[in-house]
């Protein structure tokens, strides 16, 4: 309170202390704020510049929203008033800037904005300095309103740059004319693209060249301040050149200049030069020029004494890496890793892993590199890294043998890192057979080598090794007895850890109960993993924060076509809809009925094998699919949906047409009436795969968008549209997908679907993206039809006929007689009807040729009972299809859907 009294004092000392007190001690939500505001208002209205400045300082220091509300309208007036003193203008500009940053909505835009721009022409350099800060901030939000500032800024800059070192009197700092103002002007110009006006542009380029030339001149002073100020302008100039990215000549000159700094004795300059070069490396014009400095940078990595400089050097090596120098850079980084500071080891590991993968020409080199990585810095190799190497080895059969041999050798080292054991365990379990021919790595040797590490490992690793052992039993029957012995040992069967115990018990039972065939099926080699963005890259991005992510993207933009991440090389089966989960579904549903004489636990066991086996590398496998399995696990294993899951959706190519209008979409849709996975659409650019599962009135659909080109898709946005009243009938929740799809990569979108009531038309899927600058758009029908929500119902003949009679109103029945489009095969027809969703009832129809089915369509609002009868006539190649449901439109719709399938 006393402070507020001081504010209203006429005495300067008292006022000053009052303001100081408030600036330092009052927080912005104090109740005194109203009183303080009043005092400030009085001071602003006074004509005394000192008081006005004090008041403005106070506003800027507190900068609360209340103050913004009170003064945001006044300050612009003071700023552009003709009679304001220069010092007041300066304070007003910065004060306004502060308020604008705190609450942009409060600062009214108006005719003063035009006059602010003209402050760039002000006589007083201090005013210009303050005004540039304000304009830079304002023009980020409203670039068009401030466009005129470009030419003013350029002419101001050129006047400063060309002035002699003494022209600007006190604004010259150690013989450098107005360094702060120059930096700020260059900063302001970075808010805009290169000037369109040729004259302005010419003048600007001249300025930039002058700055670059000055860097070559001998210094006017030996003082570090002189060179710092000069170089500050130089670095800002270089960032403007990089920002424009359109003047190859300047870019190369900038790069050469930075190259000189790389060997400068000032640590600060070396640091900044490395940092700037990182951004230069991503420009196509200067990438080559940057690469010429590779030796200097490698040397910096080895000899710099300051860790932050070494880190920059490592960043730059990462940025300048391409196919030509990858081997050199990766080996240097590996060497550096041995001595690197602990704080940055993990980042280096990630970078090495990414570079090795991205630029791998032969995969044996890649495998070597990653194994070296684990050997040198095992503790810093995160899960993502070793998961990734397993993914790649699994997907590329040309390295599997080599990988098996290499890990086998690596494991022979007396002390090897646990991550090495994990990788080794997995790879030998999958591909150990490839090296079993050599007596030095015969199956028993492989097993005893792995088992010698077993006791030293953590639970997770031991669990993985147990899975490896069971795989060995399948691969090498001769090891069966030994391994069963290990599994039977008390330390496994009665292990305190539930996971280990369960695995030991289950694997032991599996190995003794199941026949060789079943074992071979269950323990088959893992199918290829779906290609997607490397999780390592995602992790590095997370580590570096959002700002760096874009830089990383830039770095990989030009090379995405060489990416293993689903580049052009992978075999078709890995590009198309991922099959693992379809395989799992198929397998999982198949064995139980076949193995029915086995104890009741067999089924659980098998299911466990499937959920545990892959769980040895949980996030390695297609995680969403796994979740998908457990959540939507079919109620009964003989569920027709599971049986029908197409084991090889990839074998089902879509038509080659481009940009189909709706009519073709209908045809595409029809393919999915009786099945749930496959390729929905494919053209030269894009492939869309579908996998879905439905239960009751809920469904989940995975859409896989594969970029078949080597160029990144931009603004990629798939969208689900509900035309008309469908909105009230079907709820579709979509997850957003990334806006960019790299060349050869695949993105996945998850749709959660809820059927609210019966519906007739499917939702539309609209996909838009830019390919090489040209917008592409595509509208398809989403394969969601009412029959997906079918629940099969078994019933006896008597019940069937009773219900059939109940649904005897003329409108409840829909009938269609049509010619067969496909060969009339009873088994195929059966499968289609099951795929359609209904149960097939035997012994109902007196004629065994005919098919009879029943089911209930589940929607949130109601259930629709549904009976159907299909009578084939082989002589006439005709069918008669009759449907009766409790709702008339449903009967007709189902009848039409089904009739197209035969």
């Amino acid at each position: 309170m006393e402070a507020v009294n001081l504010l209203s004092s006429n005495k300067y000392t008292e006022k000053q202390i009052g303001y100081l007190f408030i600036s330092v001690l009052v927080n912005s939500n104090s109740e005194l704020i109203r009183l303080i505001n009043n005092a400030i208002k009085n001071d602003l209205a006074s004509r005394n510049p000192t008081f006005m400045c004090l008041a403005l300082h106070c506003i800027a220091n507190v900068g609360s929203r209340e103050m913004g509300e009170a003064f945001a309208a006044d300050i612009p007036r003071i700023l552009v008033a003709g009679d304001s003193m220069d010092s007041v203008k300066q304070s007003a500009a910065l004060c306004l800037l502060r308020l604008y940053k705190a609450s942009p909505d409060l600062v009214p835009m108006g005719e003063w904005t035009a006059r602010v721009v003209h402050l760039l022409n002000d006589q007083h350099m201090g005013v210009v300095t303050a005004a540039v800060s304000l304009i830079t901030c304002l023009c980020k939000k409203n670039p068009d309103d401030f466009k005129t500032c470009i030419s003013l800024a350029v002419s101001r800059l050129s006047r400063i740059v060309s002035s002699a070192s003494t022209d600007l009197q006190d604004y010259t700092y150690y013989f450098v004319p107005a360094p702060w103002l120059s930096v700020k002007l260059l900063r302001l110009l970075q808010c805009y693209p290169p000037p369109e006006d040729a004259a302005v542009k010419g003048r600007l380029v001249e300025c930039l060249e002058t700055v670059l030339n000055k860097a070559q001149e001998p210094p006017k002073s030996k003082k570090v301040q002189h060179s710092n100020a000069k170089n500050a302008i130089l670095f800002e100039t270089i960032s403007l050149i990089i920002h424009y990215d359109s003047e190859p000549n300047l870019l190369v000159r900038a790069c050469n200049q930075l190259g000189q700094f790389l060997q400068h004795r000032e640590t600060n300059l070396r640091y900044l030069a490395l940092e700037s070069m990182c951004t230069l490396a991503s420009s196509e014009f200067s990438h080559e020029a940057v690469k010429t400095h590779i030796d200097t940078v490698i040397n910096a990595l080895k000899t710099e004494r300051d860790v932050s400089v070494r880190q920059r050097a490592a960043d730059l090596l990462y940025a300048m890496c391409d196919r030509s120098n990858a081997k050199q850079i990766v080996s240097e980084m590996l060497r550096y890793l041995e001595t690197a500071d602990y704080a940055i080891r993990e980042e280096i590991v990630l970078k090495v892993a990414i570079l090795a993968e991205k630029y791998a020409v032969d995969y044996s080199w890649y495998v070597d590199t990653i194994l070296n990585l684990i050997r040198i810095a095992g503790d810093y190799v995160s899960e993502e890294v070793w998961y990734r190497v397993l993914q790649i080895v699994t997907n590329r059969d040309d390295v599997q043998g080599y990988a098996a041999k290499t890990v086998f050798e690596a494991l022979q080292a007396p002390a090897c890192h646990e991550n090495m054991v994990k990788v080794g365990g997995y790879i030998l379990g999958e591909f150990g057979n490839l090296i079993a021919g050599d007596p030095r790595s015969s199956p028993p040797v492989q097993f005893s080598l792995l088992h010698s590490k077993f006791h030293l490992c953590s639970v997770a690793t031991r669990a993985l090794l147990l899975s490896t052992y069971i795989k060995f039993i399948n691969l090498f029957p001769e090891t069966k007895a030994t391994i069963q012995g290990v599994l039977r040992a008390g330390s496994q069967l009665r292990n305190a850890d539930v996971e280990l115990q369960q695995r030991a018990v289950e694997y032991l039972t599996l190995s003794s109960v199941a026949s060789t065939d079943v074992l071979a099926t269950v323990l088959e080699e893992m199918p290829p993993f779906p290609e997607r963005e490397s999780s390592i890259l995602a992790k590095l991005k997370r580590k570096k924060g959002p700002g760096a992510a874009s830089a990383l993207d830039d770095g990989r933009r030009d090379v995405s076509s060489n990416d293993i991440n689903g580049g052009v090389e992978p075999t078709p089966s890995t590009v198309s809809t991922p099959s693992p989960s379809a395989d799992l579904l198929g397998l999982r549903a198949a064995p139980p009925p076949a193995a029915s004489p086995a104890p009741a636990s067999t089924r659980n066991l098998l299911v466990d094998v499937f959920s545990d086996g892959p769980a040895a590398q949980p996030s390695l496998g297609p995680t969403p699919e796994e979740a998908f399995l457990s959540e939507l696990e079919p109620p009964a294993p003989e569920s027709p949906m599971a049986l029908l899951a197409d084991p090889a959706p990839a074998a089902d190519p879509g038509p080659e047409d481009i940009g189909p209008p709706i009519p073709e979409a209908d045809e595409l849709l029809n393919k999915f009436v009786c099945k749930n996975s496959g390729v929905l659409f494919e053209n030269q650019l894009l492939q869309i795969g579908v996998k879905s599962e439905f239960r009751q009135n809920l469904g989940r659909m995975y859409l896989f968008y594969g970029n078949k080109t080597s160029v990144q898709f931009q603004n990629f946005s798939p969208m689900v549209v509900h035309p008309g009243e469908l909105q009230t009938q079907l709820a579709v929740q979509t997850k957003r997908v990334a806006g960019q799809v790299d060349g050869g990569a695949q993105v996945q979108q998850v749709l959660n679907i809820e059927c609210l009531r019966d519906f007739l038309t499917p939702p539309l899927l609209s996909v838009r993206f830019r390919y090489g600058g040209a917008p592409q758009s595509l509208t398809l029908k989403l394969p969601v039809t009412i029959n997906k929500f079918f629940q099969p119902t078994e019933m006896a003949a008597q019940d069937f006929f009773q219900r059939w009679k109940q649904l005897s109103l003329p409108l409840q029945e829909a009938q269609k007689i049509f010619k067969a489009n496909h060969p009339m095969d009873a088994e195929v027809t059966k499968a289609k009807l099951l795929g359609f969703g209904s149960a097939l009832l035997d012994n109902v129809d007196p004629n065994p040729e005919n098919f009879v089915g029943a089911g209930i369509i589940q929607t949130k609002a109601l259930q629709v009972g549904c009976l159907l009868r299909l009578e084939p006539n082989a002589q006439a190649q005709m069918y008669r299809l009759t449907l009766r449901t409790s709702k008339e439109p449903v009967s007709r719709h189902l009848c039409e859907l089904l009739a197209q399938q035969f």
Partner: protein
Amino acid sequence: MMRFMLLFSRQGKLRLQKWYLATSDKEWKTMVVLAHKPKMCSFLEWRDLKVVCKRYASLYFCCAIEGQDNELITLELIHRYVELLDKYFGSTCELDIIFNFEKVSFILDEVLMGGDVQDTSGKSVLKAIKQADLLQEEVESPHSVLGEMGLA
């Protein structure tokens, strides 16, 4: 834009702090800076900010700036500020800063406002401060009369 400026002694005692953007988390690890040796690089990365620090005798000057800002010019801004303090106090020492805290703070206000450079001319800043001092002295002499009037 500058986020904050800190002055602290070699013992890690804070002498002046100025925050230009309200932050709830002010745990600033002076240790990192104190471990710094003169030959090392003056720039550090700290979270998403860049920290520019420089040591003058027993005092460390630390500024945190945003990713886009120019490090070298910030370094020189610190130098300019130190020059101004030097010009004003003769030869500045830590004690000047402790005992003339308000002056140090006013000079900083004249150079930097709301995290942006206000004026970089040594003369004009000093002029503003001298003017303020003059006002102060003027008012101090007829203290009794005006004081009574003001209080009346």
